[in-house]
């Protein structure tokens, strides 16, 4: 059960940090937003397009 939620939890946390970081700071915060929200897109591409 723990393993089931490990990756979704990490990805969700990164997205949340990214969404807020871009709002409270420019520069570093924007970069954090790109990373935080880039992760779900990259993971979908990795597993979805893998043969």
């Amino acid at each position, binding site marked *: *059960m723990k*393993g*089931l*939620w*490990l*990756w*979704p939890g990490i*990805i*969700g946390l990164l*997205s*949340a940090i990214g*969404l807020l970081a*871009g*709002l*409270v*700071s*420019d520069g570093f*915060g*924007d970069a954090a*937003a*790109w990373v935080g*929200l*880039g*992760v*779900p*897109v990259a*993971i*979908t591409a*990795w*597993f*979805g397009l*893998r043969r």
Partner: protein
Amino acid sequence: MSPTSLRRWSWTHKWSSLVCTVFMLLLCITGLPLIFSHEIDHLTGNEVEMPQLPADTPHVSLDRIVAAAEAHHPDLVPLYLFAGDDEPDLWTVKMDTRVDTDERQARFAYVDARSGDILGEPNFGEGFMSVMYRLHVDLYAGLPGKLFLGAMGILLLVALVSGVVLYAPFMRKLDFGTVRRQRRHTRWLDLHNLIGIVTLVWALVVGFTGVVNTWADLILQAWQRDQVAVLQSGGAQTLLAADSRLAAPADGSLQAALDRVMAAAPGMKADMIAFPGTLRATPEHFAVMLLGDTPLTSRMTRAVLVDRDSGEVLEAAGRPWYVTAFMLSEPLHFGDYGGMPLKILWGLLDLLTILVLGSGLYLWWKKRSANAATQPFASGVRT
């Protein structure tokens, strides 16, 4: 999870999704160009051409700006003046037949802040982007349309939460990221689960803030009532007394009123000015929305009221929590606070959401026809 609760959650997920899916597809498709509306307007030449004038050309009085707009739309009265986002020498004047209309037929005028010349009108009411905007915001039905889309958004949130609950029983025997490609059905089921779970937080935030945005009119009306109530009870904080000579005394003009606001709130920038009687002001006061200069405060306006006749500048208590929530909901829904990379990610996440919606619809359809095929005599009976 017991079979009963699994069945209940499945029922919740199926029906909350089915009811809202068509509208969510519409919102995702129309939202995609809206993410890039600034760039699209720029490319299609839908922006104002600012005349070349020497840098630091002083601005004319705001009353001349308003007079120019009134001459341009002779039968209309001014409602709001908006400062240009990245064009400091531009005012956009919003006008309508009365100050208290629902503003659906409002007209606009662009006015050069340096010369008082009319620079044209934004064509908000026509063209491709306008259609996208209305379909996304109110389905051409005004407040009822907004509230309807808000209700669909609440169903989306229910679908997201029930989807998370169902993720566990479906994924118990599979590693994270598994996509079983042998059969089309399992491939789309696994992709639905994978994309749904990795985009979950973004979808919850964009969905929830979208719902909050549908309440914008109601929130602003409540704020206005609050402010008027505070003013009437004498509870407002005076930032600049009527007899203060920190700025020139009021003479009924807009410019004098704004000068007094800027004297009362140094270091801030006027983002929007609302005329007395409009949704964002009170019957007797101009409201001036001020912006701060940090990334967060530049998103959060501070509303200051100025009495048109006496020149007294007031702030009716702090911004209530529900207005703060509304103001934060705008950037978190639009994705316009982190430059072009964030907009592109917003667009990609929007496309992924379309995949989740589409695969969900496909899975429901396949299951439905499979049930019909295996139980030909069970139609009408609960299966």
